[in-house]
């Protein structure tokens, strides 16, 4: 391989570039990014940056010395031609490659009504520019903030609003915040955290319409519970959309669910034949995780971006491919607690508290599926978590008999309460995305405005 092109200049793209160099690749290395910035870290954007404790311009990622890369920033890729081996940029330039890595990630799912989304005061949060403008809006002291969607991002934003002393309403279509990712049972703890911290939490509720004044400034939101809420700021936190449109017509197995690749991160083409020179990593990838029976997973976690990118880059230059098979893992800081997870809670059918105390907001919950451990979530108990990764790797019996000193007297599993796909307004950040690369049926996205139950006939 003489030239490698990495499309996507964020965490996954950077880590892949570093791995290529670390493994001895001496050829031409190009990174293409749609944002004009060098790679920066996104997790603080919904935490300390939004709270004003850190500048959105100061989360640049630590970078290996001597990367010797050509950076093409501020110009998105708009096409991939596998026959001529070229990536096309929006300005018309064509960048040739011997091998290419697709790491274009995701973007915030927009509010479905473009006119309402364009109102002054309506925000999404994904990049540092988003964080800068939302931070300025919050610092101006709006009378009320509406957060649409109670996933991790929405909950972290609500938490920051309360820290700043702002009145905040969270509208979540599912039965609880975080229910899409962790289920209704664990979500009930999240609901208590929201309410203890003064969030006006509306579950089983959607936002039907956002209303502007004559100057195009947001001033009210119509909720499905009938309330018309005066708000100056609304944050749309409905999950992410994978950036795959630029691959239309490329012949790859790419659709809104992601780009399908094998466990060695090699992309599948639309005929379900694995390619040898196109690789995929990070939020945009769907792959059959060896630990989950070949189900195609899409994992939008920081840790997955790092490890999948490193595996993909290794496989771009190595003689023997290695699989990407680490357990999904993530963290979230909100309402003063740390929430850390390992495994895949979204496939669980039951959950049980195995250590600590929910009442004291310091506990570990283990998730099971058909009598096997599949995930664990630790609330303010991070040091307990690594042991659970071993149980999950080993598919240990559920509920696990840990005999922990801080364990409950009896293990009492309850239904995990994972929603049917599309029920929560937020999408889980690690999810099973359906069968193989050639499946024709892409599930239709549910309109986030439609409530779960039909309104009564009048």
């Amino acid at each position: 391989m003489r030239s490698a092109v990495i499309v996507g200049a964020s965490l996954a793209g950077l880590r892949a570039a570093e791995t290529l160099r670390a493994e001895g690749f001496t050829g031409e290395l190009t990174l293409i990014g749609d944002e004009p910035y060098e790679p920066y870290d996104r997790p603080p954007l919904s935490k300390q940056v939004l709270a004003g404790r850190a500048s959105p311009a100061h989360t640049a990622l630590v970078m290996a010395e001597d990367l010797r890369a050509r950076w093409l920033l501020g110009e998105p890729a708009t096409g991939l031609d596998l026959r001529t081996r070229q990536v096309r940029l929006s300005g018309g330039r064509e960048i040739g490659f011997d091998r290419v890595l697709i790491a274009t990630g995701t973007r915030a799912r927009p509010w479905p009504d473009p006119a309402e989304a364009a109102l002054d005061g309506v925000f999404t949060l994904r990049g540092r520019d988003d964080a800068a403008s939302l931070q300025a809006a919050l610092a101006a002291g709006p009378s009320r903030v509406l957060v649409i969607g109670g996933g991790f991002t929405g909950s972290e934003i609500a938490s920051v609003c309360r820290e700043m002393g702002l009145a905040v309403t969270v509208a979540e279509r599912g039965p609880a915040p975080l229910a899409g990712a962790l289920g209704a049972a664990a979500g009930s703890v999240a609901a208590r955290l929201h309410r203890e911290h003064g969030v006006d939490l509306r579950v089983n509720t959607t936002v039907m319409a956002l209303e502007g004044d004559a100057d195009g400034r947001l001033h009210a939101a119509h909720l499905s519970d009938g309330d018309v809420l005066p708000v100056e700021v609304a944050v749309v936190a409905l999950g992410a959309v994978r950036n795959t449109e630029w691959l239309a017509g490329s012949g790859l197995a790419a659709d809104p669910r992601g780009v399908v690749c094998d466990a060695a991160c090699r992309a599948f083409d639309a005929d379900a034949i694995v390619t040898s020179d196109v690789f995929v990593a990070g939020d945009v990838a769907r792959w059959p995780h060896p630990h989950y029976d070949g189900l195609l997973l899409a994992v939008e976690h920081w840790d997955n971006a790092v490890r999948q990118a490193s595996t993909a880059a290794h496989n771009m230059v190595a003689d023997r491919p290695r699989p990407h098979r680490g357990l999904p893992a993530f963290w979230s800081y909100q309402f003063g607690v740390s929430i850390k997870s390992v495994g895949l809670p979204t496939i669980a059918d039951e959950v049980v508290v195995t250590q600590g105390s929910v009442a004291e907001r310091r506990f570990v919950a283990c998730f099971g599926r058909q009598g096997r451990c599949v995930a664990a979530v630790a609330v303010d108990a991070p040091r307990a978590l690594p042991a659970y990764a071993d149980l999950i790797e080993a598919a240990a019996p559920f509920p696990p008999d840990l005999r922990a000193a801080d364990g409950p007297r009896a293990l009492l599993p309850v239904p995990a309460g994972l929603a049917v796909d599309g029920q929560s307004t937020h999408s889980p950040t690690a999810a099973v995305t359906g069968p193989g690369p050639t499946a024709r049926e892409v599930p239709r996205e549910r309109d986030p405005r439609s409530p779960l139950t039909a309104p009564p006939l009048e």
Partner: protein
Amino acid sequence: MRVLVDLNRCLSYGQCVFAAPAVFRFHGAESLEYDYAPADAMREQVREAAAACPVQAISYSPDDRA
């Protein structure tokens, strides 16, 4: 200089907070927060923090880039 903590790996032992309190802090009992771009004068403290981390979650820029 630049600092990055792998918060997935971080288990909140807090050794970095003792070693470099101007760079690392807890925001809540177990939620580590840190300065991504501390002044270069902090380099020695950050180096000590990274060395003290029981799970080796801290990396920092090797040179004096902003």
